[in-house]
């Protein structure tokens, strides 16, 4: 990447964060009622002293542009506001919930990408056969399944009927006393259902994409050449088709991370997973707006980071891009 490309990329990121913060700002002003009450949240709005403090801090009696400047300044210094209900800065609340969400989203992402590529490849190389039909049908149904409902159905089957896996939570209360290994294993046990729930939906999307991409690649001339020079079918698939066919899937997966973080919100709600999603649900239920506004900002920044990362991975997989 040239210096210019890096700089323009950075500028793009700054502008994106600026726009997202501006959306927050506009929303607070568009809400019915007093903007100070929105910034304070439902529980803060009952305390007139706190409202006064909010008005002074955000300059709510000043012109809009000054208010916007004040808000952006706060965002730039990572001041995301204060939750009156929980009596803590929003930044801290989000900070301690970040880990579980990253764990969940990354596991689901890996699972969905691996599964999607494997099942998509299976369907693609057996194009038109029954295994292709079966995989495509499952993908079609999963793609239309509400993710929170899928989670509940998995709980019904694996926790209530079979009693194999815990239905909710992050870790068992007792696991802390058993040492690091037991603790990690217990978290893993709790992670299974939420990660599979969130991953399955996206696995369906990637499998469909991988399948059609593979069928497209299989028709290319260089595949015929590879076969003509006597390569075995496995070597053709592994050496020539997979890498090329998976490129659009990786690009698309990177674009889907935003949607996946949105999915994590409902999945965490279903499984009481103590991450940003669960925090979102609690903030929605108690109308804790400062937390919601901060979450929106932080989750958007997370997506931007992941997009950067996929871009880098893309460059590793496709050497043609690294040259540019």
């Amino acid at each position, binding site marked *: 990447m040239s210096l210019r490309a890096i700089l323009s990329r950075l500028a793009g990121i700054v502008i994106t964060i600026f726009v997202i913060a501006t959306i927050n700002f506009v929303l607070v002003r568009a809400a019915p009622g007093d903007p100070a009450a929105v910034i304070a949240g439902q529980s803060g709005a009952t305390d007139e002293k706190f409202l006064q403090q909010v008005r002074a801090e955000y300059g709510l009696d000043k012109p809009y542009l000054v208010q916007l400047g004040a808000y952006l300044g706060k965002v730039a210094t990572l001041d995301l506001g204060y939750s009156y209900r929980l009596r803590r800065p929003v930044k801290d609340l989000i900070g301690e919930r970040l880990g579980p969400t990253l764990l969940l989203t990354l596991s689901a992402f890996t699972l969905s990408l691996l599964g999607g590529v494997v099942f998509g490849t299976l369907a693609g190389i057996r194009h038109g056969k029954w295994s292709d039909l079966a995989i495509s049908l499952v993908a079609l149904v999963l793609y239309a399944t*509400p993710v929170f409902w899928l989670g509940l159905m998995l709980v019904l089957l694996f926790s209530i009927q079979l009693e194999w896996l815990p239905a909710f939570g992050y870790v068992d209360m007792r696991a802390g006393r058993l040492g690091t290994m037991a603790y990690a294993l217990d978290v893993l046990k709790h992670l299974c259902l939420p990660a599979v729930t969130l991953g399955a939906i996206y696995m369906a999307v990637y499998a469909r994409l991988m399948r059609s991409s593979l069928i497209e690649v299989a028709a290319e001339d260089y595949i015929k050449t590879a076969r003509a020079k006597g390569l075995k079918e496995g070597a053709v698939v592994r050496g020539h088709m997979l890498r090329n066919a998976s490129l659009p899937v990786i690009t698309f997966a990177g674009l889907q991370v935003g949607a996946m973080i949105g999915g994590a919100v409902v999945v965490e709600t279903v499984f009481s997973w103590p991450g940003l999603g669960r925090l979102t649900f609690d903030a929605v239920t108690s109308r804790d707006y400062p937390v919601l506004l901060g979450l929106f900002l932080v989750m958007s920044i997370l997506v931007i980071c992941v997009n950067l990362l996929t871009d880098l991975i893309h460059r590793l997989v496709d050497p043609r891009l690294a040259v540019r």
Partner: protein
Amino acid sequence: MNDSLRTFLRHPAGTVGLAILAVVCVAAALAPILYPGSPWDMVGAPLRGPGTLGSFLGTDTMGRDIASGVMHGARVSLMIGIASTLAALLVGVTLGAIAGFAGETIDLLIVRFIEIFQTIPNFVLAILLVAILTPSIWTIILAIGLVSWPPLARLTRIQVKSIAAREFVQAARCQGQGSLSILLRHVIPNAISPIIVTGSMTVASAILIEAALSFMGLGDPNYMSWGYMIGAGRTVIRQAWWASVFPGLAILLTAVAINLIGEALNDALNPKISRS
């Protein structure tokens, strides 16, 4: 068009999709006749299993009839799905057409704008919008519309760009027709079919977003919806699986049906794309 219709009807996916969707529409239409009372009313003992007299899908924690809720919920889901897709189409097609047809600077600006909106986690934005603007049918439609337009805008832009470069458009320019009239009379009608396909699929994703919003407690409190029912049934899933299974199946079937129709439409309207 007759050819397209024939291709559509010959497509098994299309017919299956249409059949399922027809059932959902009939359920929505018959809801006030079969269940004239409010779906919020108590009809019997709470948590009664399915198959019992008077409530064939069972009752929930408050003794409300699941079957009545599922049928009334169909009205809300379909209405919000279609209305928010229309809103998304309005924004997406307008912005996409301007980007594809206007000069480079405007195009670049709109593309950047689309990119920013595609970065934002759209469900989180929808939650924020509905929560702050207070939940109602209208804020839900607005929120889903606002988060669903970017793919439509991208698609419209590419379509408009490719059609605008064709000879018949240049011919129209030579005849001295104005830009707006060329865009509306020649470009958009020829660019519209893939947009219709994607638009139809958007209805399905809008229904899924609506369900997720009402599951989170952000539904319109005046209307029974599938997502709300699942959210309410979640706490009693150990005792009453039916309270969350049936509304979920309703969402699943509706979304599958719409996606099947979308695929069949794709084959019928974009024969070249689907065959390649």
